[in-house]
């Protein structure tokens, strides 16, 4: 990606209008293909042409929209509730009924997860009868 950068940018020393055009084509190319373009590179280009202030802001907006899609698939918030359901059910399985009742009162997700049907399936008849309340 970097060599094409240089090729596009170098022939335009001080033409803000043309620069903005190449910017838009560049971002278009990026979204179509490679997503791992380092944003610092575009910032240094902005530093080389200081009079093209508007273009820098346009470019930054483009960078933002580009950096968001790769961020979403990565499970950034490592919150315990974002664990996959099979692990949550393992935890549920080791809890007492009293704890499950209280857990169900905390939020919608846990209430849906620890539904009576689910608990029945999870615990099976043997434990349902031997479970102390």
């Amino acid at each position, binding site marked *: 990606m970097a060599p094409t950068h240089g090729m596009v940018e170098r022939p335009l020393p001080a033409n803000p209008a043309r620069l903005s055009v190449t910017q838009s084509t560049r971002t278009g190319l990026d979204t179509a293909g490679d997503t791992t373009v380092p944003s610092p590179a575009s910032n240094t280009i902005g530093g080389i042409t200081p009079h093209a202030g508007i273009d820098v802001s346009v470019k930054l907006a483009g960078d933002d929209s580009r950096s968001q899609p790769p961020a979403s698939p*990565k*499970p950034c918030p*490592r*919150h*315990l*509730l*974002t*664990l*996959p359901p*099979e*692990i949550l059910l*393992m*935890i549920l*399985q*080791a*809890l*007492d009924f*009293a*704890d499950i*009742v*209280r*857990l*169900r*009162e*905390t*939020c*919608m*997700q*846990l*209430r849906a997860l620890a539904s009576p049907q689910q608990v029945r399936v999870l615990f099976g008849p043997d*434990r349902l009868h031997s479970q*102390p*309340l």
Partner: protein
Amino acid sequence: MAAQPDFLWIKNDMSPDGRVFRVSRQAAQHSTILRALIEDFEGIDLWKKEQCIPIKIHVSDQCLSDVLQWAENTKTAPEKGENADNNKQVELAAEDMHFFREAITTSEKLYELLMLTDYLGIVPLYNMACQVVVNMIMGKSAEQIRRMLGISKDFTPEQEEAIRAETAWAYDEEQPPLDR
């Protein structure tokens, strides 16, 4: 000296720098999938560094190295064929308690530990991690659980009223406890 035949190589594939970790044959026995891999590919070049096994989930290198360190340190042979003991309360041995106190200090780390041990099938450690979460939840009120897990109440007032009514028996102090 030929290539050391007693080490597996594991690569943290989703991490940007992708560190490669060395796992001894003995430590690999703790993981059901690594054990199965060793059994299935015994005659094949599984033990070369180029043949590293990728970890395809998002975990930090720190967590992976902690778990592998645990596997190296834990010498007790994993019991084979022991299943259906989910109902049993997991007892944490002293060294495992130490592991949890040292390595698993935040809920993010606990999250990664659960994901990784589930992925690798390290059953004893997985059960212990579940037990740690259970201990966190056990005996707490709904509000305490919410605060601990950092979740917000997302019920509408009507829903909350319905839930209250549904579980009113749980808070009825007049009723004598069932004797079993």
